[in-house]
Structure formats: C-alpha cells, structure tokens
C-alpha cells in the first residue's frame, strides 16, 4: 500500500543545507509523480531551477537581521502548470534595481560569470510577483507553464564562437538557419514581472 504523498509545502531554516533539501524535495515529488497531472518532467525541472535560483539569491544576499532564517516553499498544481510561492523573513531587496543590474551585466563586452539568477528565473516563469506580506515577510510567487516556456532565454551568455558542427546530442528547438552565438534572444517571450519594494 503506498504511503502518503510527499508534502507540498516545506519550511527551511538552515541556509547551509536548504539548497540540498530543496532538491531532495523536488526529487521526491518527481519520483512520486506528485505533479504529473500538471507538468511533465521538463516542467518540474524548470520549476526546480527557478526555485533554486531564488533560494540561491537568498542564501547569498539576503539579510535576516539576526532573526532565525525561515524560507517557506509551497507548490500547487494548476490546470496547466505549477504555482510556486516562496516566503522568507529577510529584509527583502529592490527586485527591479537588481534586475536592472543583471540586464546591464549581460550587455557588457566581458560579462561576469555571476549575476544572472533573476534573469534566468523570470525568463522561464510567468506571473512573477515579488512583494512584502502584511506581516512583514517577503513573498515571491510565480507560475511555470512548460508550454509557455520560451525555447531561448534572454541573452544570458553571449557566445563569441560556437562549435563548427551540429551538436551530437539532442538539440530540441534548434531551427534551421539559426546562427551560433545567439544563445538566446530570438523568440524569447517578454517576461511578466511585478515587484513591490520591500519595506
């Protein structure tokens, strides 16, 4: 007799282990087929990546003001995707300003290898909303709908060169006539982002 389904929500307190705990949770959901009716394995991987990027941002940059860190993840199946909500008790940050910095970074001739997490996250999600809650926490919500995920993201990694022959492995979405070096940009959907300044 199968056991109870894995939980759909979880709270984390240890910034040193939260990333591994998150991925273990997603792995359990994948193994159990928890969200199989809402998304395929590609969609679950996209949701996992988006959650990872946000939590990585919290682990590296969030200020908790001496409070015991708390990061709460809730994932719910919708008709055609997954809705993810991540709340934390950090001081929050200026989402739009940080996003502007990342957009400027990737446009530099020799961009840093860091600082693309928000771009990665917003490009593969929809209805992204970042705002403080009534009780002073920070809340990020987004939806992953695999059918709407663009084949190429924003130009996160402009490439000066490319391999001279087609990839040996699968290259889904590789349309004839595409040129190397445009690792993204063509056909990428305009992300929808709403951010309310943190307190």
């Amino acid at each position: 007799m199968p056991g109870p389904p894995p939980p759909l929500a979880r709270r984390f307190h240890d910034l040193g282990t939260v990333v591994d705990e998150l991925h273990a949770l997603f792995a359990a959901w994948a193994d159990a087929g928890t969200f199989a009716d809402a998304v395929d394995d590609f969609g679950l991987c996209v949701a996992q990546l988006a959650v990872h990027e946000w939590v990585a941002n919290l682990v590296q940059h969030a200020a908790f003001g001496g409070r015991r860190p708390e990061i709460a993840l809730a994932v719910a199946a919708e008709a055609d995707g997954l809705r993810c909500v991540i709340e934390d008790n950090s001081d929050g940050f200026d989402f739009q300003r940080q996003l502007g910095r990342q957009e400027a970074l990737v446009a530099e001739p020799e961009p840093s290898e860091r600082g693309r997490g928000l771009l990665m996250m917003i490009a593969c999600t929809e209805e992204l909303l970042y705002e403080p809650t009534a009780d002073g926490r920070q809340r990020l919500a987004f939806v992953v709908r695999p059918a709407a995920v663009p084949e190429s993201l924003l130009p996160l990694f402009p490439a000066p060169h490319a391999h001279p022959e087609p990839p040996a492995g699968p290259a889904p979405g590789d349309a004839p006539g595409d040129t190397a070096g445009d690792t993204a940009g063509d056909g990428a959907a305009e992300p929808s982002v709403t951010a309310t300044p943190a307190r």
Partner: protein
Amino acid sequence: MSFTIQKATPTIAVVRVGKALDFRNAAEFKASCQEHVRTGVRYFVLDFSGTGILDSTGLGVIFSLYRQLTPVGGQVVFASVSRPVQVVVQLTRTYKVFRQFPTVEAAVEALSRPAAAPAASPPGGTA
C-alpha cells in the same frame, strides 16, 4: 565540492561534475579547471551523468572557461547530459556552443582526432 578532474591525455581533461555545479562550488570549479589549463589542458569533457543541479552561476563559469580556451583553439564539450542539465542547456540554447556526446569515451575519442581538435588557431567564429 562534488567534481573531480582527471587527464585523459596531456591536453584533454575529463571533469566528472558530480551532483551539482552551482553557486556553492563554481569558484572552486573554475580555479581547478584553470590550474589544468596552466598545465597544458586545452579540451575539457564535462561529464554530467548524475548531475542534478546546474544553475546560472555554474553555467557562467563554464562559459568563462570556454571564453578562455577558444582563443587558443581549445574546446569545452558536454557528455552524458542528465535531464536537469539538459533542461538548462535547452532553455539557454547553449547546445549551440557546447557539443554534446552520449558518453565521455565518445567525447574523448572525438577530441583526440586531429581534425576535430584544432589546437593552434582560433576558430573562425560562425556567429
């Protein structure tokens, strides 16, 4: 750190990425690869079998290595790409930049062929 690096030939190194390449170990990954570049390695085969996490920072350091090697005719290629890594590769269209091989052995064999591994001149740049 979950990765290990072993030389397959004096110029080809195989990096077994392990469970994760992300913001937590990216700097160490970069430093280790650069140490091998200093010893003459020009081709890196990244073995992604069993890799559950490749995030934007991890991909960023791979691009950094790629940018370092392409001017000297080097290459970075992917092998045994796991599903989570394949999703990142697809989303970022980096399959246009990094050749993929089904196995490490296939990648090493391809890079060992002189015609497939130009070592002296920079690529023509097809972008």
